[in-house]
């Protein structure tokens, strides 16, 4: 119920990582989320698209993981972006102004 599922695949056609998330990212699941981002980026240094269609909750620790990845990837001219966030998550991104760099 309160877990996080992550499906990662490399989209050859669009030359980016497609990471689909479902469930909740909070203090108990942020670590596995961080490890997944680090692992895929280490494997192939390409842009990352996070599909939030099925993600119901993210907190500051989850956003922190994305900010960390954003900083590291920016140095190498790669981009990380969030796609299709639910309304509650969109609100959080707006409050924190992260929508300006992640949407």
């Amino acid at each position, binding site marked *: 119920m309160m877990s996080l599922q992550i499906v990662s695949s490399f989209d050859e056609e669009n030359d980016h990582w497609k990471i689909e998330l479902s469930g909740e990212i*909070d*203090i*108990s699941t942020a670590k596995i989320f961080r490890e997944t981002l680090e692992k895929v980026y280490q494997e192939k240094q390409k842009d990352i698209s996070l599909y939030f269609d099925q993600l119901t909750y993210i907190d500051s620790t989850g956003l922190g993981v994305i*900010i960390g990845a*954003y900083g590291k990837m920016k140095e190498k001219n790669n981009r990380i972006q969030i796609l299709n966030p639910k309304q509650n998550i969109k609100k959080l991104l707006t*409050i924190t102004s992260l929508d*300006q*760099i992640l949407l």
Partner: protein
Amino acid sequence: MADLLKFSIPGKPEYVGVVRLAVSSAANCAGFSMEAIEDIKVAVSEACTNVVLHGTTEENCYEVECKIEKDKLIILVTDLCGGYDTEKYLEPCLDKPKEGGLGIFIIRALMDEVDILSKLGEGTKIQMVKYLL
């Protein structure tokens, strides 16, 4: 008369989600809208996450109190983690996004009133109020 709900939670990451559910449920009982329930849920969860991240040992418990009043919900998150200097808190800056510091910022944005009382050597109390419209 206000209704008072009290929870004592071990400082482990996996129980923050339990608080989230319990507080959402209390906010629902108090008659808040879906959007307001979401705000309360996020704010309380951030307060608990702060406790779990900064200081508390897994054996130690922290406390969450929800006071349901006629026109508002008051939530108090209390820990005995030693406190911190609230003067040193820096607001997050978009020009240089960093990983920490977002939690308190989010709480302040979502709740109507927020008071943080931290006593060095003792602990921290965060009181959050949301008004029923």
